Structures are given as structure tokens and as C-alpha cells.
């Protein structure tokens, strides 16, 4: 393999951008760092998309995003499919919602006009199509109106979303605005964010959420505490093969990668390759396949990331500060 594999990124998102000035203006993008990308769209940093460069539409906001993409390739695929629902081949023709009705000058079908409802319905659809259905995705909504629209669509959609896709909402906190109003001060919203980040600013951009898991994995394999495979009960030979550690706190259940996958797929259809979620055979706790793979790839391929992660833990004095630093990054 000439291409060096990277670990699953800490965060990769496909976001829905909406103009705060004109709500009908939408943009679909993907980024591993939503705050940075938003500032680019708003012209505060270099590199914004031309489609979002019109000053009359600025500032933009991210009203929702999908996180959990296992890599850039996956995110770009999803982004393209979401931006071109009239063309994407991931959508079977029978369930295609958006149909092109016009043709561009070059003969290609024209993208039909988008609306937030259209985007959300296609998002709903794409989360169900076989190409993306089993990815460890997570849905975030940062705008109440958009979330309401989403719920409306979910009620009318002919097929429910996979239950294991978690939908998270993080609206602009009322408390923040209230406090600002109450104080009557000229407090900027930045300070309010500083007080309590929300929305995309609250998203973890680094591996902090999996830090405990990573540390456990490091410890287990460093001191060869792996023991036997929790699934097949055969001894695990350190350094030979791929081994997965349970992601639950305190559980050091280690197993072969294939054993784990087989175990977690038993509940579902045996035809599938990718597990989504299951229960640890040791601690019986629920585990997500994406989390465990993130730890595994980090352990296998992300030496630098792991070092960085564990180093920050060592000198970790105030925990919230590191989080805000991460947000700033």
C-alpha cells in the first residue's frame, strides 16, 4: 500500500451553512474544523468559498452538521451526494427526491433550487441509503427552526432513520442571551461564548473525548495485559494482528478485530461487514464500532496524535481551558 493510512480523524463534518441575513441561501460543505471553516466563510479568515463571499449574505451560520465521518474521503463523498442529490448515484432512482428539471448550458442537469427542507430531506435519505447507512455518523442541529423542520420531515418520511444515529441539538443557549440582556452590558457574544461554548464551538476538534479510551489501550498493550480474546477466548499475541479494546470505562476487554466484528454483527444480519454498535462481551456495556475503530486506528497509525493527547493529559491543570483552547484552534 503506497498510500499511508491515517487514523480516523477526531472530527470530520459535513455541514449545512445558512446565511443569517437571507435564510434561503444555503451551502453544503465539509470540514474537520467547523469553527475555522465558518470564519473562512464569513471572511474572517482566508479561504472561504466563492459562493459564500457575497458580503450581503454574511455572516453565515452552521445550522446543522453531520459528524463522525471516518475520513476525508467518506466526508467528501457524503458532501457531494448531499449537494447533488439530483445526481448522486448513491441514491437509488426509486427513492430519489430531488429531480433535475432544467439543464445547464453545458448540457448537464441543473441543480434544482435548494431549500432547507430539501436539504434535510435529502440528508434523511442519504443517512438511509446503503452507501452511508452503516457509517458511524451523528447528527447535530444548532438552530431550533431547522430542527423543527427536521422533525417535521421525519414525521412525514416514509422510512425512519436508523435508530442508532444519534441526533444532537445544541441551540444557542437562552441563558447566554438572557444574561447579556440582564446585565445590559456591552458584552460581546464572544465573551458569552467564552462563558459557555455552544454549537459548533462546543464540538471537540481533537481526540479529547476518546482520551481515556486511548490511554487504556496504550496501557493494556504496553504492559501486555490483554489476556485472552473476549470473544473467542484464545490468547492474544501482542504485536501480531489487530486487537480491539472495549471503549467502556474500566473495561479492559480485548479481542481480535474480526472476533469483535463477528460478535457485534451477530445481532444484525450476518451478511453485513460493518458493525454499528453492540455490547461488550465482558462488561455487557454498549459499545459503538466507530469509537472502537477510532481508538484502534489511533493506536496503529496515529503515534503523534496519541503522544500529543497523552502529553496534554499529563500537564492538564484546568480542564475547561484546554477545551476552549481546542475550540480556538
Amino acid at each position, binding site marked *: 500500500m503506497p498510500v499511508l493510512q491515517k487514523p480516523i480523524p477526531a472530527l470530520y463534518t459535513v455541514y449545512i451553512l445558512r446565511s443569517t441575513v437571507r435564510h434561503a441561501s444555503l451551502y453544503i460543505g465539509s470540514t474537520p474544523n467547523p469553527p475555522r471553516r465558518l470564519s473562512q466563510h464569513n471572511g474572517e479568515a482566508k479561504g472561504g468559498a466563492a459562493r459564500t463571499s457575497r458580503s450581503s449574505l454574511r455572516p453565515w451560520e452552521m445550522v446543522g452538521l453531520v459528524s463522525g465521518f471516518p475520513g476525508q474521503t467518506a466526508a467528501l463523498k457524503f458532501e457531494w451526494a448531499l449537494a447533488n442529490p439530483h445526481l448522486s448515484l448513491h441514491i437509488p432512482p426509486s427513492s430519489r427526491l430531488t429531480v433535475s428539471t*432544467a439543464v445547464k448550458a453545458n*448540457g448537464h*442537469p441543473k441543480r434544482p433550487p435548494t431549500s432547507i427542507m430539501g436539504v434535510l430531506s435529502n440528508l434523511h435519505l442519504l443517512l438511509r441509503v446503503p452507501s452511508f447507512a452503516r457509517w458511524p455518523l451523528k447528527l447535530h442541529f444548532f438552530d431550533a427552526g431547522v430542527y423543527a423542520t427536521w422533525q417535521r420531515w421525519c414525521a412525514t418520511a416514509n422510512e425512519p432513520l436508523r435508530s442508532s444515529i444519534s441526533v444532537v441539538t445544541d441551540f444557542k443557549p437562552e441563558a447566554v442571551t438572557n444574561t447579556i440582556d440582564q446585565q445590559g452590558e456591552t458584552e460581546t457574544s464572544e465573551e458569552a461564548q467564552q462563558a459557555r461554548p455552544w454549537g459548533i464551538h462546543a464540538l471537540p476538534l481533537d481526540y479529547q473525548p476518546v482520551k481515556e479510551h486511548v490511554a487504556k489501550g496504550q496501557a493494556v498493550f504496553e504492559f501486555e495485559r490483554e489476556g485472552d480474546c473476549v470473544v473467542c477466548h484464545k490468547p492474544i499475541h501482542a504485536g501480531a494482528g489487530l486487537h480491539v479494546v472495549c471503549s467502556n470505562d474500566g473495561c479492559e476487554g480485548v479481542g481480535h*478485530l474480526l472476533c469483535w466484528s463477528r460478535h457485534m454483527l451477530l445481532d444484525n444480519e450476518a451478511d453485513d461487514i460493518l458493525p454499528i454498535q453492540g455490547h461488550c462481551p465482558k462488561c455487557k456495556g454498549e459499545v459503538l464500532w466507530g469509537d472502537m475503530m477510532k481508538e484502534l486506528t489511533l493506536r496503529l497509525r496515529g503515534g503523534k496524535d496519541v503522544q500529543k493527547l497523552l502529553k496534554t493529559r499529563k500537564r492538564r491543570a484546568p480542564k475547561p481551558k484546554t477545551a476552549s483552547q481546542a475550540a480556538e484552534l
Partner: protein
Amino acid sequence: MIASSPSEKPRRKVKGTKDVATHGQTKLPKGKVTKSVAKDKPTKKKAEIVSRHFVDDETPPNAISKPEPVTVNDPVALEPALRRRIDWTPPPEIMPPLPQMDSSVVREVSSQTQGASLTTGDTSRDLFKNLLDTYGRKPDDPEASERSISELTTDVLGKRKLIEMVATTTNKPKTPEVSPAKSKAPKKKPRTITDLATAAYRLPDESDVSVSTGNSKTESLLEYFAVSDGQAGPSGKQTGAKTVNAKKGANSKKPSKKKAEPRKQILLSPTSALRQVSRQDFVFGTASQLATEEDPELLRALHKAMTASNQDLDDPFVSPSPVTSNLAVQRSAGRKLWAAGARDEGGDLLDLAVVDLTESPAFPRDYSLPVILREDATADAQSPIAHKSPVEIPSSDDEALFGTKFVDVDSLVKAKPNLTQRKDESNVLNLSHDALETNQAGPVDDVDFGPPPSNQEQYKLIEEIQSQSQSPLSNSPKQPVDGPPRPKFELYTDAQLAREIASYGFKAVKRRTAMIALLDQCWSSKNPTPAPGTRPTNHASMSTASSATAVAPNPAASAPAAPVAKPRGRPRKSSEQAAATAPPDADAPQVAQAVKKPRGRPKKDAAGTAAPPTRNAPRVTKATKTKAAAATAKSAPDPPPLAPQVVVAPSPRRRGKAKAVAPEPVTVLEIADSDSDSDCSLSSLSDMDGLFSSDAEQAVDVSMSTSIGEDREMSLVSMDPTDQQTVMFSCITKAVTTAPPATDPLHPSWHEKMLMYDPIILEDLAAWLNAGRLDTVGYDGEVSPFDVKKWCESKSICCLWRNNLHGVARKRL
């Protein structure tokens, strides 16, 4: 610059003298160089530079007439270097190819340097000045220029004497002299296969020469014929350029003086000169033929005879004789070379056996010809002349045209578009000139010509298809001979294509393939092959659109034209199906559809024939109604019966604009997914091909309905995979999951990669599966990367092609 330089010159001089005074350079060079200030001195020097080398053995009258010792060069000791340079490049007299070139610039430069070197006088400047003097052209000397031109002509033709130019009227009396030339023919070195093979690569050389010689080429060639008449091919015997120059000085001077006047008329740009040269009608033949016959007319007749004889062959698979193809610009050199080298049992060239020369009326029967050439002396020989071939050998008018002034190629293309067909060989060049390059008279079936080198398989496919579809099209092999040949739109430049399309009244089409297909369709609808008796002449075929509408497209007759048009893309699958299945009456609307396929709305007069709307589209909308009305009124062609959801109605706005014109259906084509999907790009390509299919009777809708049909979108995740696919998928799953786990964590197995959400490279996985893995799970057969892709998509496995959309291997995943 020219204007400003005279003012600069004296200034420089003054400065330079000051410098010399201050720096105190060596006086000796200064004194020497002062001589060269004289205006005409460089000319003399130039003449001497050539003559000095030969001053011992020969005395060229012109050059030595003004002997002046060049003392300037001696201390520098430049002579050896100069001699070497002369070996590499033509002598300085030949350098100025364009008599009209305003050489004031050169003069300025040289005079400037003269002034500079005069003052500074250091040796390097001196050297530069000498070089300039040597190379620079002095236009003030008419004699020199004339002489140089005359010498130039012989030199240009030096090795290429055998390539004859357009037949001229002046060399008629030469025909009796042919036989003495023939007698010495066997002595000449026969053209070998190597010669043939390298002929294609000699072209740039030729064109360079032609460019450098500019417009004087034709004239000088005519001249050359006259001269060589008397001299019995002096350039062929040329031992060294200098001797010939010296010898011919007096001889060639006379004719060149006569011709000098017209030569100065036009100064062509290099491109147009190149075009003009390539437009010239070379006579080609085997070396033996060329060597035998000095007379271009004879060769011409010979050539015609050969083309005609080849043309009369009914066998479509006969390999093209090397003679029929332009050797200079060969497209499929390899194949033709093989054919050229083909020998029969007797060891004779196969192709030559077919040719008969001796009966040609252009010259008396001569038995000194090689036996091979006389072999087949039948009445067949008369046929080329009697044969009314659609492609005309340039008439005397044309020759006059060529002789005096060259018309714009494009106008010629317009005037004689059917001359543009036999140009398979010439796509090496810029193709804009091919209109006149029709050495092969008469349309030979396309099968006879080699495919482009990259299309060998496709070519075979076409052959197969043709051979299979020949039974319904009984006159298929013969038809191209009679009908007006289809122009090779593939060989047009984009600009030409655009112009052609505009001439048909269509809006500009961006894609080149679409343009070609459209033109093909236009052509085929415009030139419906009529009944055998009433084949249209060339001019009829080029009639305007209004007259074309009068001619009802004969579907049955247009069918045989299908194999002729060989579009650039891969052969369409449906061509034979269409030939076999399409009912003849259904062809007519399709022909019409084909015409109206392009995106831009067709103009009113560009419409095909009237056709009833056969569309079974469910939506009976305003569009359909207006279309029906328009179809009856304006004889607008009908859209193909596409799948309903595929056809997208034009927006009302557009329809309103295109009131009188039938709105054309637009189809939603699948665009390749950005991340992957070369298969769907393929499909979309093929759709495009089908959409703009050049073969009129090859039904667009057939291909759609059969291959794609109702759900034309051809999704990767087709909802109901066939049983075979299900079996294959489960086998792939089994093969992947049963593979042993990897021991090296850095090189996981495919299954482990998938579990870790790694992007899977489809080609690699397919190769791995095909390399025995599928056998172990009991699947007999191979899987393509496209199958693997479908499987991956069905399993939510992130997959990729190895190459990105630019065709380059990905650097990162």
C-alpha cells in the same frame, strides 16, 4: 525600434569611441573594423565566405566576380568554425528564404554592431559581427537574392526530387523523354520498407523547408521541372551543394528571373505556408514507380488508376495499398506497412499486381516498364479515367489557382466539402488543410483504411459489426463507392466543426464528440443515399438545407451509410441491433431525430422531415401539443421515445421563446460522481454517444430501451439486484470474511481494512478477489471492479478508484 535606432546609432558610436579612448583598447582591431562601415561590404563578404572554400577548384561566376580579400577574419581565425557550420546548415545564400522580408531590422542590427565593433573593437564583438555578416541577409543585392533563390530551389528539392508536385501544363513536351528515364530506373535504389516506415517522420522536415521557403515554393518547383528537363535531374546527381550551385549558377538564373515577379506577391505566414504545402497535391507511389516516371502526369494517371482499381474491389477487407494512402502523413503506418510489405508466392508485391499502368492514355504503351506493372493490362486500366469519381482531381482551374494564389482553405472546404473525406492519414497535421488532400480519388469503404493506432480493437469491432450486419444491408460494401462519401468530421479542427455546425444552422455545441456526431447526422440526413440510379452528385449533396429538406431521407438507403461514419468513440453496441431490429419505417423519424438532437434549438430550415410524434410520454403537456403542431407545420423532427422520467420538459420560458421551433427534449444524463464512478461516466458517455449518434438509423432509443430502459439512472445501488448479482455479492462477502486475518498490524487484510473504515481501492480488491479468493468460496468467475464497487456500496464500505478523476493515482486517502 527601427525608427529609433538610427538616432541611437551615432550616439553609441560616440560613446564607444570615448570608451576606446579612455580604455585604450588595442588599436589593431579598431583599424581593421573601420573598413566594414561601408554599406555594401557585408554583401561582398558574404559572397566570399561561400566562395572562399571553393576558390581553388571552381570559380562561380557571380561570387568570384568581385573578389575582395577579407582580411578582417584572418586574425580571429574563425574559418574552421565557419566551415563546420556550413556543414550543418544550408549555405548563407539559402538563408534568406523570403525575398519580401523586410530586412531593415537585420540591417539595423548589423550596422549597429558594426558601429559598436568599430569603436570598441574587441574580438568578441568582431566575432559577432562576422557571424551576423555571414548570416544576415543583404537585400540590396538583387543578384545574390535571385541566385540564392534559384539555388534554393534545387537545394530544397535535393533529396526529394521524386516527389512531384501538382501537374503543370508546362511539362507536356517532356513525355517523350520518359523512356530514357525508365531505362535507368532499376539502378535507383528501390524504396525499402524502412523508407516507408520513416516516411511519416520525414514530414516535419519537409514542412520546415516549405515554411522557410515560403510562397516561392510552388514557383520554384515549376521552375525546377523546367530546369530538370534540360539537365536530366541534376539535383539527383548532386554530389555536393556547392558544386551544383556553381554549375547551375548560369542555368538556373534565367528561369528564376522570369519567375521572380509573381513570387514577390504574397508573403505567407508560416502556418498558412504550411497549410498550403500540405494542400499541395503530391504524387505518391512506390519508389520504383516514382523512379520510373519522371512525368507527373503519368504518375498522376498511374495513381488514379491504382485508386480506381482499389476502389473497384468488392472485398471490403482488402488492405489498403500503400500507394493509396498518403505516405507522408500516415495515420496507421503500422498496418499499412504490413500491407505494403505483403508479398505473394512469387515474391512480388501484392498491391502492385493490381495496378495497371500501361493502358493509361496519358502515355504510350511502354514495355520497358517493370513486369509487375504490366502484369494486369486489362480494360480495367481505362476505368480510372472513365470512372466518374466523386472526388475530382483538381482541374486546370484549380491548378491555376494553385499556381498563382492560394485560396483560403476554408472557402475551399465549403466549396467542396466532399473532398474532405479521405483524410484518415492526415490527422497528424492540424487537419485544417485536409480539405484538399484527396489523393485517393473516389470513396473507398472506410474499412479499407486503417483505424487510428489506438483504436485497433474498436476497428476490429466495427469490422465484425459490419460483417454481421451486411446481410440486411445488401449493398453495404458497394454503396460507399457510389454515394457521396461522408466527410471525416473527426479530423476537423474545432473551429471547422463549429463552422460546419453553424452552416447547418445549429447553435454552437461545446463538446467535440457531440459536434462530430451532430455533423454526421446532419450529413446523413442531408445526403440520404438515394436509389442506385439517382445518386446525388457532389454538388447536390452540398446543397443547402432547403434543398435537403426536399429530399426525403430514405431510411433504407441511409442505413448503409452507417458503417461509413466511424465516430471517434468506441463502436456503439446497438448498431447491429438497430440494423437487425429496427423496422424500416421506424427509421425515418429516427433519422429526423438524429438531426435535432443537439442542445441548441435548430433553426427552422435545418429541420429534417416531418414525422408524426411517436412519443409515448405520459405527460401530454403544452410541450407535446406545441411540438406536434410544430412538427406538422415546420416538419420538426420528433424526439426519441425516451423514458418518461428521463425526458425533462424544457422550462416554459424557453418554450415560449422557441415558439415556432419544436422544443427539443433534454435528457438528464448521469454525471460521474465526483468521488468515483468511472463506470457511470462511461455510461453517460455512451449515452451521449447514443444521443448524438452519428448513424442515423442506429436507433438512439433502441440503445436506451434495451440497455438502460426505464430506470436509466443506472444507480449503483440498484434496488433489485439480479440473482446472479446476489450470488456474486454473497460470494464476495464470504471471500472477504473468510480470509485469514493479517499478522502484521500495518498491513491489514481486506476485511480488517473495511472494518477500520479504510477506503478500499476497488481495482486492488477486485484483483485480489480474482486471484483465487473467489474460487475458494466456490464462485466460478471473475468480478469486475464495478461489481466490487456495487458490493462495497451495498455494504457501506468506503471505496475508491485507484485514480482520481484526473487519472492520476491518489496520493492520499
